[in-house]
Structures are given as structure tokens and as C-alpha cells.
């Protein structure tokens, strides 16, 4: 490849980004320096280049000064490369004649020394000006988008996203790991701050999912493999056998009654172990689908083969129960994937000095959600494990949140659900309630008002992180009680408060298998382990993998309103792609100069996408432009230097290096 036709006329544009850049980098001198570089015909600085007048500046110069190359020194290309490419395009220049210089994220924001920062910026601008001369005019390819969408995770986020998409006529595959959809929200009693019951607002949506003609619901299933790219993903889903045919089961639940186990005796996950279930069970009465599951771990027939199989008799003519059922794998094509895999509650055992798992009357918030729930194990009665009704209750905030030893982040929901539980427990028992908090965070709509309401309900609020929950009695009044030892930081005294019940407001953390899921879908995790969004503000539900979107707590702790909003946003992003019908690809594919190719086949093995075919008769390699993803590994590997890559030509990179290193 040779220098682009005609003479090179470069325009250099330095952005102040308000003071984000100009406060550290001497933008005036930088622009002045730009003007001195070879082939540069105009060099300007401007307050906000990304703004409309900023872009006009560039368009104008393209028209008046006949620019055919543009260097923009501003923020990261990940933020505004697209913006400026469009500016070039609308200015009548091929968008790929642009070269961006990152002097914000990778210079002004990370450097204190102004001279050093300006020196760095100069080097980078010089490098870009050299490189851009070698940029070429390129065209984008278009990939068609398969209209179907897969939603992974059947919590409120997944449900809402699925329904939104389905209602707009797109087909949705909703995959849920548990035997029922509903997620954590299904376990809650009431929701803050409005106190409307979770079931009343969730179950209608759940049945809507079940009955929707555009939704294929796969519960008790998990994604095992993801191939392909935006527009045409191929996804494999493993469906565990529930030993009951969903299509034949009417949900009469006779089989449950008929089970040879008269008493339920196995811990029930849905009730976080507070209740028992039989080997054949349904998670909760409103479960969707209304189909029981048989747990082979506990079912006599599976363990010994010597069961009367009363469940099968009970099912009778329907023959819905099939103990021979086997795990099967579905394979589908979808254009987009929405991840709504949620979060898990922090394991309170990790903080030994709060006594969870040691003292029976120390509960986690989720356990108490079940206790106060009318359809819970106690029918809504808040009673201790020994059947007593607590007269005093301590609610410990920030358990597994804001703690370097466990999780550093604030889990956002605990303050409010703690207030909610305080209200509900008081309502149910009239007990004396103490909240122990570091800070009360009530930024949501109607949240602060709810806090005020609680204060007026005479709930105690003690500002201080609980130092320990213990059973040692220093005073007769503490005999047979749990004692909270804490500094009341506002009163400035250390207090010992005896209570009957302790509720640990455990924080939210990434699902145990978030790491595997992340690899499966080839996306990134943030430092805490939650999935990383493409941009915290401008692309909050997108990921760095096109066509994969995030919704709900898998992206970070959030409450139901935020989750639903995000689910809607994710659905909208997917819809936008589907309705456009195609995505434009980055024209960075590699290509072979066949006359130079020696036919050594080194590259063929290099390509993970088998985009390189070997032409037997010509003894040459050829790269399938549609298949190539543009990593450039083959380019670097080619011994005869006959493979090139658009946007990342060797020459361009050499020029960049040269530019960086030629001292000026």
C-alpha cells in the first residue's frame, strides 16, 4: 500500500474538554505545536470539540481548507471516535481518515506534572499526525440481525425484558436455572417504600410470560455454550430433567399429596431452609410453570428403586411423570442476548463475630422476608426458632457491605429493606426495634419520607456499626438474650443492648458462578465481580461485546424500580438493533497480498474463527472478510509479511512508533 492519493492535508484539533484537559495539558501550546508538524494545514483548540459547534469547526475546515486527514486530541476513542467519524462523514470525508489521540483518560486525568503531561500529549499528537497520513478510505460491512432474542435469568429483570421484547412481536427464549421464574423478588413479602406486596405485582407478569405466544420459557435450564457474534449467536441450552413433562402436567399437584413421604422433611431452598419440602415439590404455590420437580437426590425411587411410586398412580391418565426423563440440549439462533442473571446475598457466616450459624436467633434479612411473608413457612408470623415472639429486635445494617474484609461496595438496597423489615416486624409483633447503621441512604423516590415515617413509629436508630453479637451476659437483664455491643457514635457512648432476635442486613454480591458466565458470554467483570457495562453513563446496559446487554443486579446492586428500568433499556437496545435489521462492522479485517503469500499456512492455524481458507491450487491463503473479526494475530504471524490489516496497517503502526520516539 502506498501513501493515499494526492497531497496530505491534516487538520489537528485539540479539545479542552472544559477544564478536564486544559487544566493539566497546555492546550494552546499543543495546538501551536500541531501546526508545526509536517502536512498539517490547520491546528486549532476548542472548549468542547464533541459539541455541535466543535464538529462544525472540523466540517468547515474540511470544506474550506480542503482537509483530507483529521487528528482529534481529546478523550478516549471508546467514548467519541464514533462522534468524530460522523463529523468527518457529514463533512464529506471518509470517516476512517480520522485519528484520535487520547489526552484525557490516558494523560490529563492520570498526570499531575503539567509539563510532563504536555510533553506526553505532544508525542501522541506527533505520532497521530504521522499515522493518519497512512489512513485509507474504507467502507463498513453490514451484518444482518437475527430477530430472536435470548434472555438469561428469569428474575424480575429477565421477566420484564422478555415481556417488553415479546410484546413488540420479537421471539424471546427465556432461560432460568431454577424450576420456576420469579427470582429473589418472589421471595419478598412487601416492597419498599410503597409496601405493596411483591407477589401481587410479580405473579401477573410471571403468568404473562407463561402464556405469551412469543416467549419460549425454559426453566430448570442453563446456557452451556455461546458461539457467533452480534446478529447471529448460536446458543446451546442444557435442560435438566424435572421428571415431569411440562406439556402433560396440569399443575393439579396431586402427586405432591400422594408422595410416600407423608411429611415434608428436606430443606426447602425457596424458604431459605426455614421450611421443608418433599422429594417431589413445587417451589411456591404461584410458581411458573405450575409444574413440580422431582429431586433425584432425595427421591426413594432414584436412590433405592424401591418406591411404591404413588406419585405416578396419582397422576394417572395424564402420564405426566416420567422417571426415565433425561437431560437434553436445545440449540437456538438469536441476534441479541440479555443477561439478567442477578446477584446473591452475602453469606453472613463470613463475619463470625455476628454469630450467624452459631446463635439460632440470628437471622439473615432474606430469612426474615420469608418469616413476614403471608405465604411463608410461618404464615406471616414472626416467631423465633423456639416459637417465641421476639419482644426486641436488632437490625444490623451493612453486613458484608462497605467492608474491606468482605465487600467494599454499598449494596444500595439494604438501608431501605432494613427500614421495610423494621416496619413489618413492628407491625407483626409490636417489638422494640433497633437499627444499627453507618449511614442511612434513602436517595430514591419516596425513600426519605419512608425513613421519616419509621422515625415517627419510634423505631430506634443507633448510628454505629455493630462490634459484636454475643451471648455473654454482663448484667442479669442480659441473661438468655443476644447482646449487641456497639458504640452509639452520636451519643458518644458504648452501648450493650439485649435483644431476642438479630436480623443481619446482608449485602448483595455477584452470583457464585458470575466468573464462568462472564467467560461463557465473553464479557468483562468490574473489580467487584459484577458485569461491566460499556460506559457507566452513556452505555449503561451495553457490554464490550456487541449484541450482549445487561439488566438488573448482575451489573451491580439495585432495587426493583431500577432493575425494571434497566431491563426496559436493555430490551430497547436489542429492539433498536433488530429493527435496524443490521449492524455495521468495524472495517478492520485482515487481507492477504496473494502475490507475496508463500503459502506456508502459518496463518491458517492462527485464526480462532477459521476465517482463513487455503486455496489448494493457487497455494495461497485467503481471508474470509465476513468471518474475520480483526484481531490481527495472523498479520503479526505471517513470516512473509503478506497479510495486512485495515485500520492497523504495519506502516501506520511503524509511523506511530516513529512519531512517538522522534524527539522534537
Amino acid at each position, binding site marked *: 500500500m502506498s501513501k493515499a492519493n494526492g497531497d496530505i492535508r491534516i487538520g489537528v484539533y485539540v479539545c479542552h474538554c472544559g477544564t478536564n484537559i486544559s487544566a493539566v495539558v497546555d492546550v494552546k501550546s499543543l495546538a501551536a505545536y500541531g501546526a508545526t508538524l509536517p502536512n498539517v494545514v490547520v491546528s486549532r483548540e476548542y472548549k468542547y470539540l464533541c459539541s455541535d459547534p466543535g464538529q462544525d469547526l472540523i466540517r468547515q475546515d474540511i470544506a474550506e481548507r480542503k482537509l483530507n486527514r483529521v487528528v482529534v486530541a481529546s478523550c478516549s476513542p*471508546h467514548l467519541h471516535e464514533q462522534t468524530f467519524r460522523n463529523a468527518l462523514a457529514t463533512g464529506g470525508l471518509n470517516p476512517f481518515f480520522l485519528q484520535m489521540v487520547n489526552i484525557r483518560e490516558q494523560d490529563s486525568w492520570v498526570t499531575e506534572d503539567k509539563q510532563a503531561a504536555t510533553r506526553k500529549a505532544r508525542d*501522541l499528537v506527533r505520532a497521530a499526525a504521522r499515522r493518519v497520513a497512512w489512513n485509507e478510505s474504507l467502507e463498513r460491512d453490514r451484518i444482518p440481525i437475527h430477530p430472536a432474542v435470548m434472555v438469561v435469568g428469569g428474575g424480575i429483570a429477565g421477566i420484564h425484558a422478555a415481556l417488553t421484547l415479546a410484546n413488540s412481536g420479537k421471539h424471546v427464549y427465556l432461560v432460568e436455572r431454577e424450576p420456576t421464574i420469579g427470582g429473589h423478588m418472589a421471595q419478598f413479602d412487601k416492597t419498599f417504600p410503597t409496601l405493596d406486596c411483591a407477589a401481587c405485582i410479580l405473579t401477573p407478569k410471571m403468568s404473562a410470560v407463561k402464556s405469551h405466544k412469543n416467549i419460549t420459557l425454559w426453566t430448570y435450564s442453563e446456557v452451556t455454550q455461546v458461539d457467533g457474534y452480534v446478529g447471529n449467536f448460536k446458543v446451546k441450552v442444557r435442560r435438566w430433567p424435572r421428571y415431569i413433562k411440562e406439556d402433560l402436567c396440569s399443575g393439579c399437584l396431586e402427586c405432591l399429596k400422594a408422595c410416600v413421604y407423608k411429611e415434608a422433611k428436606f430443606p426447602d431452598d425457596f424458604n431459605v431452609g426455614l421450611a421443608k419440602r418433599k422429594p417431589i415439590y413445587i417451589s411456591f404455590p404461584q410458581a411458573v410453570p405450575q409444574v413440580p420437580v422431582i429431586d433425584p437426590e432425595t427421591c426413594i425411587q432414584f436412590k433405592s428403586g424401591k418406591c411404591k411410586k404413588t406419585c405416578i398412580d396419582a397422576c394417572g391418565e395424564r402420564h405426566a411423570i416420567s422417571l426415565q426423563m433425561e437431560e437434553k440440549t436445545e440449540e437456538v439462533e438469536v441476534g441479541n442476548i440479555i443477561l439478567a442473571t442477578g446477584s446473591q446475598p452475602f453469606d453472613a457466616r463470613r463475619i463470625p463475630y455476628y454469630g450467624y450459624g452459631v446463635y439460632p436467633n440470628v437471622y439473615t434479612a432474606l430469612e426474615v422476608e420469608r418469616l413476614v411473608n403471608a405465604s411463608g413457612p410461618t404464615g406471616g408470623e414472626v416467631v423465633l426458632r423456639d416459637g417465641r415472639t421476639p419482644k426486641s429486635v436488632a437490625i444490623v445494617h451493612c453486613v458484608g457491605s462497605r467492608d474491606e474484609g468482605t465487600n467494599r461496595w454499598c449494596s444500595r438496597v439494604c438501608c431501605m429493606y432494613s427500614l421495610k423489615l423494621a416496619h413489618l416486624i413492628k407491625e407483626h409483633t409490636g417489638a422494640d426495634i433497633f437499627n444499627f447503621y453507618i449511614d442511612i441512604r434513602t436517595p430514591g423516590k419516596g425513600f426519605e419520607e419512608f425513613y421519616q415515617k419509621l422515625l415517627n413509629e419510634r423505631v430506634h436508630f443507633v448510628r454505629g456499626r455493630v462490634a459484636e453479637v454475643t451471648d455473654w451476659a454482663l448484667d442479669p437483664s442480659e441473661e438468655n438474650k443476644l447482646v449487641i455491643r456497639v458504640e452509639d457514635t452520636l451519643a458518644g457512648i458504648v452501648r450493650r443492648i439485649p435483644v431476642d432476635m438479630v436480623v443481619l442486613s446482608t449485602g448483595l454480591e455477584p452470583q457464585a458462578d458470575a466468573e464462568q458466565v462472564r467467560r461463557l458470554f*465473553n464479557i468483562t467483570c468490574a473489580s467487584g465481580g459484577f458485569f461491566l457495562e460499556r460506559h457507566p453513563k452513556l452505555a449503561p446496559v451495553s457490554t464490550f461485546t456487541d449484541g450482549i446487554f445487561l439488566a438488573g443486579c448482575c451489573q451491580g446492586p439495585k432495587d426493583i424500580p431500577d432493575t425494571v428500568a434497566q431491563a426496559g433499556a436493555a430490551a430497547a437496545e436489542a429492539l433498536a438493533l433488530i429493527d435496524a435489521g443490521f449492524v455495521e462492522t468495524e472495517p478492520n479485517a485482515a487481507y492477504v497480498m496473494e502475490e507475496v503469500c508463500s503459502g506456508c499456512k502459518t496463518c491458517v492455524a492462527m485464526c*480462532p474463527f477459521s476465517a482463513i481458507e487455503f486455496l489448494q491450487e493457487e497455494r495461497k491463503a485467503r481471508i474470509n472478510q465476513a468471518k474475520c473479526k480483526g484481531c*490481527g*494475530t495472523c*498479520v503479526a504471524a505471517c513470516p512473509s509479511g503478506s497479510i495486512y490489516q485495515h485500520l492497523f496497517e504495519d506502516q501506520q*503502526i511503524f509511523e506511530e*512508533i516513529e512519531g512517538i520516539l522522534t524527539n522534537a
Partner: protein
Amino acid sequence: MPESFEPKIVAFFCNWCTYLAADLAGTSRIKYAPNTRVVRVMCSGRVDPQFVLDAFAKGADGVLIGGCHPGDCHYQEGNYKALRRFVLLKRLVKQMGIEEERLRLEWISAAEGERVKTVVNDMVEKVRALGPRVPARRKEVA
């Protein structure tokens, strides 16, 4: 050049992990040594040994290659290819009489803004200790 020698380090960062980490370091306002000059490539697998040799030939005091952690490559296995090449490259560079500390390959994920700081600072320190390089004559590397 200021009396205290300021090494210039050419960094090849992959677009999906290390370059994003460097951006994250910026958005988190993490301060680190201003001695790196980043060349963005789509994948660490794109880093042609010639780039590295060229950088040294043209007087770079150090070369830092940043890629995704093993198993995290946006292109599935580009970083492994990079690693394989790196091993050979390191030998070659050594034979050319360039100290090992001047060439470095690091896995830095998009979430590890802090790590960009530690890696860069550490490398700058080591290279500064080594002092400026007498640029190898082009013949040797071309």
C-alpha cells in the same frame, strides 16, 4: 532532558482489556508515571515482534505489551499467541544486549485500573534505574 532521566516507554495495549484499564485508571483519576506512550492495537496478538524491535531501534527505553488475562481474550486466544512470541522475543532482545527489564508483557483486565498504575510505575522505576539506552544500530534489528 531533565537532570533526572525520564525514560520513554512505548506501550502496546489491546483494545478490549488493557486499553480499557488505562481508560478506567483515567476515569478513576489514578495518577501514575507519565512516561508511557500507548499504541492501541485490537489484540495483543497483533503486536508484531518487528514493532518491538523497531521501537527499541528508534530509542525507546522500554516496551510494555498489555493484553487480556489468559482465557479472557476478546478473540479467544490472541493473548496466548502474544505470549508465545514474547518468550522468543525476550531471548532475541537479550542477545541484542538490551536488559530484560526493558521489555515486559502484562495481563491487565478492563477492571484493573489500579494495576495499570502499579505496572507502569514499577516498570518506569526499573527502567530509570537502568538508565538511558544507547540505541542499537538499525542494522542489528532490521
